[in-house]
């Protein structure tokens, strides 16, 4: 029983993530899409927990569900959904889709051809890396300080750009 349970969790979460992701892009109503997106993100948080990355799981929920999807909803509520629903749902970029799907299929086929030793399921770590939060902080603020600061600088630039774009009409 001990050996079955983790993979059971994994399959349940994976099903939840994949099904919600598919439903997310097929809903006509944008708010419904966001709700299914939340379900996907919750599943990913569950996978982090499954890997004993408790801090990441909580941050995933706080940042993505508590922050980003709430902002999505904020914007979507201001949009006239009836009008949006009449628009074509798929943009018709069939060539790109076929290329991407083909590449994915080739990858999958390669792994299936190679058999079981070709890929491993992510096994839950033997135990949580303790102390979880401190280890992440050390990695971010000491070992990888420069990449971390560069990333935050990039985000700052993007934010200032967005503000400038939004303010353009006021001049």
């Amino acid at each position, binding site marked *: 029983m001990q050996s079955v349970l983790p993979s059971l969790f994994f399959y349940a979460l994976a099903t939840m993530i994949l099904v919600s992701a598919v439903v997310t892009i097929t809903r006509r*109503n944008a*708010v419904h899409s966001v709700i299914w997106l939340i379900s996907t993100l919750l599943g990913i948080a569950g996978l982090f927990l499954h890997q004993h990355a408790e801090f990441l799981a*909580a941050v995933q929920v706080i940042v993505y569900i*508590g922050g980003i999807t709430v902002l999505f909803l904020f914007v979507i509520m201001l949009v006239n959904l009836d009008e949006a629903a009449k628009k074509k749902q798929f943009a018709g970029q069939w060539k790109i889709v076929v290329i991407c799907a083909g590449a994915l299929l080739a990858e999958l086929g390669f792994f299936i051809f190679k058999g079981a030793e070709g890929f491993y399921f992510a096994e839950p770590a033997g135990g949580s890396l303790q102390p*979880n939060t401190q280890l992440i902080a050390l990695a971010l603020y000491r070992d990888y300080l420069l990449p971390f600061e560069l990333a935050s600088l990039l985000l700052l630039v993007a934010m200032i750009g967005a503000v400038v774009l939004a303010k353009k009409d006021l001049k």
Partner: protein
Amino acid sequence: MPTIPAAIEPFIWPFVYGAVILLVFPLLAGYIVLLERKVMADIQVRLGPMRVGPHGLLQPLADALKLLIKEDIIPTLSDKWIFWISPIISVVTALVAVFLIPMSDKLPVPDTNIGLLLVLSLTSVGILGIILGGWSSNSNYPLLGALRSTAQLVSYEIALSFALIGGLMLAGTLSLQGIVMAQKEQAIWFVFFQPVAFVIYFIAALAETNRAPFDMPEAESEIVAGYHTEFSGFRFALYFLAEYANIVIVCSIMTILFLGGWLRPFPNVAALEFLNFAPALVLLGLGGACLIGLDRKPSKPQKLGMIGLGGAFILAGLACLLPPVMEAVHGLFWFMLKVFMGVYTFIWIRFTLPRYRYDQLMNIGWRWLIPLAIANVIVTGIVMQREQIFAALGF
């Protein structure tokens, strides 16, 4: 007695505790509502609910019954399943968060190494219930309420988190139990080290729970009842329950992080050991207060009710004098007292301060609270690492 398999044995007590929370908390929330109405009446020089039970003590039960048997109305043009699920999102996340709060070191509350973050993430999911509920009603006022709520919650969550970081730097852990133990080890409540963070947290918590003076999402004089305008009966009761659960949660986090959780005042001064008798004294005092003025009660059932209540309080107080019971109860007592004082202050502020304007709300949040909270984190960091900094500067 059958033996319990080792695989499920650790889950039994938390499960029982969770079930108890699920059953007791709605009642508790009902009595917080009664407290609010009574305090409001007192501030406005009225009596408040007096009809149901002695001093209106059974009013919450009557209200709950009324809400449960009301007709369940779903607006025709609403988005049905979102309308159906959004109060559930709010109430489930709030009750799970209540379950995670260690009210005493004797309770079987799971101690996770991300305790505080877990509670915060649950409340941030609970916000979705408000937003989706307002949107799905397909009506103007709820939508306005939901929009206001979103903007307000997103703005104040930042200040709230930075205020929490100030306290967390002292505790050095995210586990709720660990935070209280850190205060026991350092022999001081963190509010004395972090008064600025405490004040910022309190203000941001008022905004997070949509309480006056930041109750724009449900400002009754502007947008009827905000996001829950279209909700009636049972669904409205769920929103109400979630709202009061959230008040209890923010007050509990305040208690745990700043006010020493279940520790009594001055937990390391042995001379104050007699404070452990406080729960017994309070219960006996409550019992006595119930029995005073009995002959002024208007009717016989009311008189009997007060005698029963007073007797129950006195019995409970006597039970608390027994050493094992006292040992088990005094942590819970101090925690409840601190949370109660927080909730009382929330209510007090609601009937004292007028509502802010929307632009004032945003100004306070972005231009005052957030910079102040960030400055507080920086100063805390400098003070905590002062020796290394002095050494580096060559003093």
